[in-house]
């Protein structure tokens, strides 16, 4: 009995592998012959194991006051001195100031070398998301504390965690506004005589509009590079005729006076994709790739993401399959492909944000999962929901694009849903969608989620034509110069049009895509750069009353060869009596020019945008156009111009 007491005292250390070899052997020997102590050991072991998993699942904050900075700016209360002094932001700023000063002081002296070296050593490989947990089964002398590394998915207890790649997380950024936008260099006027062909890929993204709306709703004018005019124009559905021929899409054309420059003309090219009734849509195989990193841990991100996904799941039909991959420090399969709504909704409910963002690994795993449950003839799609702030592993724009490009030919499409603000990486997400055969939308509120995931589910989810490219030939006899409005990052080389290897945008069922050209008529006396005087060539014009020829190439979703559609526009009356589409699209483009403060905005004015938007509101069943009018009014006030 006395021996048992002695042994009992050491059981914990025995379990934890913290015993000296001699003690260890003594305990082993005793346990072999003492049933009571074996029972005690089993009980303690059970408790420790249980406690380990309980601790893992127990809720705890993952970040220090994660998003207070946003609050402060939004509600903008006058900060008293105390408030500032005691605010975590100030403390952090103060601290980093102290830090910098110290560094400066130190770096001035010779000591720096050793200090810096030591500092490197002092930062042992961090274990932030990858929380070590002891392995209880292997109790061995001296080496019993082998650590098992488990990725941390807070409160995701019953999930399968499939580790793919867990690179060392980078030190995350500051809580300041670190949104990223690629600079847009606007298309300028091209002389029709010199370069009569204009070639570009369609763009079905709409993210720029909702992102612009988010800024305006927060009483800020958007940064110019966040304003991609074609995405704003394409946010709206237009009233184009339905295709009725052999092609699943049809081209509508219209030309009228340019609203912001009387001496110019505005040409509209509208594509309408074939509508497919929801019940006739092929089965969906959707893989949600959910960003569960710490940066998503904000009330306007994770909860919004969850409600958005719930909306989509509600739309599910029995033949549809959904799987979920979450990624933070490591990527994990949260939900294997299933058609059971309750299971899916539960999995969505259990998603929680924490840790850094290994986007690259997540993308890999999502495509792998989608491929495993691939539905032939179905709509196979990865839906990436993120703020784009990837900071672990493959994260440079170029690397991610290459990764996505490799996946593109697998027959799996990509939808990128952007969430959040402050660290929003617009540039990254736009590129991903563009290169991943996909579309990109920005979700700023639940209504936008409804628009993208419910109202346009057919269009967003079912591709009816892929690699859709347009090439327009202008007739120099009637057009002196032309300028494509927007589509800056969708421009293609002339020869790309006939090259079926060249990837381009996808058109979804029932979707419309609209492009606008600003034209300078041939008889205009506007000063343009002189035509290069060629010594060996002479351009001869062939008499024609055509203004331009529009050529369109597309492939059906499973084809490798493209189909060609050719249409022409004659000068004079365009045959379109109702210019409603052109008027409204023109108003949206003009609004974009104003927000960009474009060098081509000429006489653009908020008042006239409002006037034309109001006149051409049409039926507007979802109220999007009414909202547009409100946004223009707001921008007008914010810009302080009644121009």
């Amino acid at each position, binding site marked *: 009995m006395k021996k048992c007491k002695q042994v009992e005292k050491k*059981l914990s250390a025995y379990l934890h592998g913290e015993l000296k070899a001699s003690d260890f052997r003594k305990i082993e020997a005793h346990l072999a012959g003492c049933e009571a102590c074996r029972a005690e050991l089993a009980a303690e072991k059970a408790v420790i194991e249980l406690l380990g998993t309980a601790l893992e699942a127990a809720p705890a904050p993952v970040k220090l006051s994660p998003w207070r900075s946003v609050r402060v700016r939004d509600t903008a209360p006058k900060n008293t001195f105390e408030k500032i002094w005691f605010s975590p932001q100030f403390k952090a700023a103060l601290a980093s100031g102290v830090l910098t000063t110290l560094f400066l002081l130190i770096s001035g002296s010779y000591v720096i070398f050793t200090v810096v070296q030591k500092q490197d050593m002092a930062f*042992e490989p961090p274990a932030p998301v990858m929380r070590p947990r002891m392995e209880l089964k292997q109790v061995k002398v001296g080496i019993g504390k082998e650590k098992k590394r488990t990725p941390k998915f807070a409160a995701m207890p019953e999930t399968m965690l499939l580790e793919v790649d867990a690179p060392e997380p980078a030190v995350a950024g500051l809580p300041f506004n670190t949104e990223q936008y690629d600079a847009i260099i606007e298309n300028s006027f091209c002389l029709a005589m010199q370069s009569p062909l204009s070639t570009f890929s369609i763009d079905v993204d709409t993210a720029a509009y909702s992102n612009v709306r988010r800024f305006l709703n927060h009483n800020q004018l958007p940064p110019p590079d966040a304003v991609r005019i074609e995405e704003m124009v394409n946010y709206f559905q237009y009233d184009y005729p339905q295709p009725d021929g052999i092609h699943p899409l049809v081209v509508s054309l219209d030309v009228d006076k340019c609203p912001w420059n009387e001496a110019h003309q505005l040409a509209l090219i509208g594509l309408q994709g074939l509508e497919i009734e929801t019940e006739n849509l092929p089965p969906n195989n959707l893989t949600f790739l959910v960003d569960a990193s710490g940066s998503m841990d904000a009330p306007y991100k994770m909860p919004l993401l969850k409600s958005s996904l719930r909306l989509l799941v509600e739309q599910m039909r029995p033949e549809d399959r959904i799987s979920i991959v979450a990624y933070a420090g490591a990527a994990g399969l949260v939900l294997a492909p299933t058609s059971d709504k309750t299971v899916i909704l539960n999995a969505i409910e259990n998603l929680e944000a924490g840790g850094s963002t290994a986007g690259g690994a997540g993308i890999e795993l999502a495509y792998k999962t989608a491929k495993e449950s691939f539905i032939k003839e179905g709509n196979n799609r990865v839906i990436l929901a993120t703020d784009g702030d990837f900071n672990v592993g493959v994260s440079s724009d170029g690397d991610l694009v290459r990764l996505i490009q490799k996946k593109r030919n697998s027959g799996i499409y990509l939808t990128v849903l952007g969430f959040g603000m402050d660290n929003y990486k617009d540039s990254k997400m736009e590129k991903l969608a563009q290169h991943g055969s996909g579309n990109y939308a920005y979700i700023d509120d639940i209504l936008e989620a409804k628009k993208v995931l419910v109202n346009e589910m057919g269009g967003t989810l079912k591709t009816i034509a892929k690699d859709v490219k347009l090439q327009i030939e202008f007739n120099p006899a009637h057009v002196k110069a032309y300028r494509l409005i927007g589509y800056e990052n969708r421009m293609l080389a002339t020869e790309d049009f006939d090259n079926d290897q060249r990837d381009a945008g996808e058109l979804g069922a029932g979707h419309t895509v609209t492009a606008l050209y600003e034209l300078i008529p041939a008889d205009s006396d506007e000063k343009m750069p002189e035509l290069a005087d060629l010594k060996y060539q002479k351009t001869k014009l062939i008499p024609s009353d055509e203004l331009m020829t529009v050529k369109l190439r597309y492939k059906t979703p499973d084809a490798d060869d493209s189909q060609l559609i050719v249409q022409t526009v004659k000068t004079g009356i365009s045959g379109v009596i109702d210019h409603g589409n052109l008027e409204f699209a023109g108003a949206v483009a003009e609004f974009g020019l104003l927000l960009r403060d474009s060098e081509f905005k000429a006489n653009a004015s908020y008042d006239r945008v409002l006037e034309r938007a109001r006149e051409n509101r049409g039926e507007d069943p979802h109220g999007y156009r009414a909202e547009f009018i409100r946004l223009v009014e707001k921008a007008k006030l914010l810009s302080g111009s009644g121009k």
Partner: protein
Amino acid sequence: MEQYQGALLRYATRVLNNEEAAQDVVQEAFIRLYGNWGSVMQRGVKVKGWLFRTTHNAAVDYIRRESRRKLLHERQHEQADVFEADPEEENQRNERQVIVMQHLNSLKPKEREVLVLRLQEGMSYKEIAGVLKRSEGYVGTLIHTATQKLTKSLRQAGVVA
């Protein structure tokens, strides 16, 4: 430094059984780190260990402050109730796990602390000794008594055999 935030917050939350206090305590640890940056760096100390020890110290200060107001136990239980009362959260967690956490919270803070450092942070007895500034033997004894207490109370509750 953000890399240690999550781990420290989990640790402090468990020890103090109070999320808000944990935020304060960890914040305090970071402030102390920045304040002592030069000396910490020069001595080539491991930042992780240093942060855990400082968080431990800050937590001890917090508990002292609180107990001086004779509020410790009542408050902890109050807050524990508030903290655990989120029904949606509880549904998601295994019932047994919830019970285990309740029993864990009935231990003394330092007993909780060693178990958390061992099981949640995967520290060795030696590392824990470094955080607490006590001997390894002390840590071993504390872990033993804590485990025994917990086993006993869970056995009474019928959670383990």
